[in-house]
């Protein structure tokens, strides 16, 4: 089984893009959301879906393991998860404990985080709660998926990529738009088979 964790703030466009990408993936896909709405949105394109009940931050590692283990009773080829808890939390602290014990049995896809373009420009700051969260999310990610790409001019794209790489020089920046289809095939490929979970292992 391959485990792909996809993070991103509420409203960052991740579920809409994921639904398009999963539609291109030819193998059985499971999905675990951190809220009922996202689970409902993914039901039509995934073989199995589930959601994480809301737990204390200290309980989420165990919860992540427990819910992914439930999926493994009849494992999908690809299991996509939102991080348990809230969309505002960093994902790597929740993935790492599973990685530590399961890396020989499970293949880990790159950590993908979705960003709203308007929140990246000038927003990756440690001065505000939202800015610090976004900054930490950018810092831990293997792939930064920038949504609403159909609305972006070339100058904006360059500025966004630059801002993300200032925080995380290793990040792959992927512009994504379900409207035009931009980046969707690449996203599907990353989730299904391309690359591996790397940045959180040494950051």
């Amino acid at each position, binding site marked *: 089984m391959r485990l792909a964790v996809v993070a991103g703030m509420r409203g960052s466009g991740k579920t809409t893009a994921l639904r398009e990408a999963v539609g291109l993936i030819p193998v059985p896909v499971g999905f675990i959301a951190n809220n009922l709405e996202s689970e409902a949105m993914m039901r039509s394109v995934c073989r199995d879906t589930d959601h994480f*009940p*809301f*737990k*204390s*931050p*200290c*309980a989420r*590692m*165990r919860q992540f393991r427990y819910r992914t283990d439930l999926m493994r009773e009849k494992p999908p080829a690809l299991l996509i998860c939102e991080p348990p808890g*809230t969309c*505002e*939390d*960093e994902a*790597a*602290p*929740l993935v*790492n*404990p599973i*990685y*530590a*014990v399961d890396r020989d049995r499970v293949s880990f896809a790159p950590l993908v985080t979705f960003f709203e373009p308007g929140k990246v420009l000038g927003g990756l700051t*440690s*001065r*505000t*709660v939202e*800015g*610090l*969260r976004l900054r*930490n999310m950018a810092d831990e990610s293997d792939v930064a998926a920038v949504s609403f790409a159909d609305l972006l001019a070339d100058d904006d794209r360059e500025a966004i990529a630059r801002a993300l790489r200032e925080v995380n020089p290793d990040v792959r920046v992927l512009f994504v738009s379900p409207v035009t289809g931009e980046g969707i095939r690449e996203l599907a490929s990353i989730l299904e088979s391309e690359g591996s979970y790397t940045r*959180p*292992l*040494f*950051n």
Partner: protein
Amino acid sequence: MNATPRELFLGRLAGGSCEGRIPFCPRDLTLGLDAMGVRTDSVFGGEYDSRLSAACVLALQAEVGHDVTMGCISSYGLEVFGGEMKYPPDGIPYASGYPFDDIDRMDRYQPEQIVGDLVRGMRRSCEIVREKRPDLGLCINIPGPVTMAGFARRLETVMMDLLENPDIVEKLVSFCTDALIVQSEYMTDGIADALYMASASDNPDMMGDDDYRRHSLPAVSRISERMRSLGIPSVFHPHGVFSTDDRRGLFLESASVADGFQFAEGNEPGPIAEACGDSCAVLGGINGFSSLLLGPEERIRRDVGRFIDAMEGRRYIMTCSCSVNRGLPIGNLKVVADELRRRTA
């Protein structure tokens, strides 16, 4: 003469000297079980095994060399209120049955009942650790008030109550605070150096700033005031972001309700140190779920250095970002202790 680990810890926590090396206080809740290679249910399975618990705590300390222990292999005493805990053989205790999911059941109990067999057993473990190693610091670990409310009623339900039934939250947090005061008085009496309020769900990111101010801070203040009247300093460890400019006011309020403030992962240490000044001790440190869990050693040493540099001149006590539990490589924890000694001795 060199200060003992206990003196170093109390010096920083109680407002004394910042001289000498930085003390290390990993919150060793269950990792000691790995140090002895025993099953979780060996301690918790029937009657709480205080001797084995103490042996585990001391074995871990002997291997790592930290300055402060929590004195026992920890769990939460919710069974006395009709709750259910699970003790997986190689895992961490967790709540699986919530005693007050029907809030009316709370009326059948008194907060004083918290001192049951489990709490008595954990205290006995702390006594043994204190007898064998009087030179070490010893903290008593309890949950924060809203955190305990989440264990008692299910966190999802409490979060909904905040929106729909705030009076229930008021009543529940009041009960939990009373119980925590009783537990703290019992467990600290004559043996402990400090009380530690582990407060993952006393968390403004989850509750919102207003509800955190309304429910968590007054309750934490009640507990720490009571402890202060008994001569016991307290540490408050809420989760959430506190290091940003827009949370500075909330951080200062949070830091004022106890003698020490521990920040969680996701915070920048520099702004916390700057905002805090000398008004309270600052605790916090290496990320338990990345560096400490995965290593390698160079990364751990780098991260320890980062915290030491950020906290220079402050009343700083190094911890890990959260508690240390079984499954964590003990060798990595020892790297933290060694690097801390090497750099600050």
